[in-house]
């Protein structure tokens, strides 16, 4: 497991066709590791009848709504959690 709770990460802006569990609206966005959920077979492979092994670390990642959407109308305190696999995350530098 590469990341610790509190670490800042950025979701890779990668394009990958097929059964991908990283939603487009989070690609390229920065957030924080809220917690480590566990390791699971990679759903991107499971969907095609493969084993999905080795298991991939999955994290709950928090994002500020104001960072996700231009013109978000709710309070700046609103946030969003999504569960993101480690291979979709890179360390984010320069954010405190």
């Amino acid at each position, binding site marked *: 497991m590469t990341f610790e709770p509190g670490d800042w990460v950025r979701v890779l802006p990668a394009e990958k066709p097929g059964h991908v569990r990283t939603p487009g609206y989070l690609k390229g966005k920065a957030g924080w590791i809220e917690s480590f959920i566990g390791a699971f077979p990679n759903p991107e492979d499971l969907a095609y009848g493969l084993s999905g092994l080795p298991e991939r670390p*999955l994290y*709950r990642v928090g994002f500020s709504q104001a960072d996700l959407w231009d013109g978000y109308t*709710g*309070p700046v305190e*609103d946030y969003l*959690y*999504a569960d993101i696999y480690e291979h979709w995350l890179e360390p984010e530098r320069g954010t405190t």
Partner: protein
Amino acid sequence: MSDHPHEGAGSGRTTSPYTARIRAIEALLLEKGVLTEPEVQDSISYMEARSPANGAKLVARAWVDPDFKELLLSDGKGAASELGMDPEHPAEFVVVENTPQVHNLIVCTLCSCYPRAILGRPPDWYKSFAYRSRAVREPRAVMREFGFEPPEGVEVVVHDSTADVRYMVLPMRPPGTESMDEEALAGLVTRDSLVGVNVPRL
């Protein structure tokens, strides 16, 4: 025994192209031996045995029993098993708590992930493009349309069920319910309140 138990809907009934397609796929899977008819029936029975009433029971018990609440929030499957439910499903089951400071809303933007092992099938609106796209972008507007506006100062937290976790909301016990027993309390817990688009009311 009929080759195709779903046929015979009668003349005049319209079948959507999606229904026709899924029936064709089902028939092929049966024909090729990938699935058996008992497996299909077992799967239907599994879904029909689950309903939001399970969620309401979990919530009502958590409202009257602090130890159970702690278990529900730390080990959702363990809590469900304790009330005689069968939460076995490959996905994790996580319960998130509404507080005077935080209101939670559940969505699956990628498809329709939902704690089916506990609550059964999701409502149609939960699977709609409108809900899936708007719940993340304008959660407060969506809740308003369901008839709920979080009080001033409450943070809205959206949970996008993108992977291997299924989420359910533990709503707050409404004021004025101090004299109600567990069964009556469960009657206040709606499916909408378990998704977080609304809250239980007296």
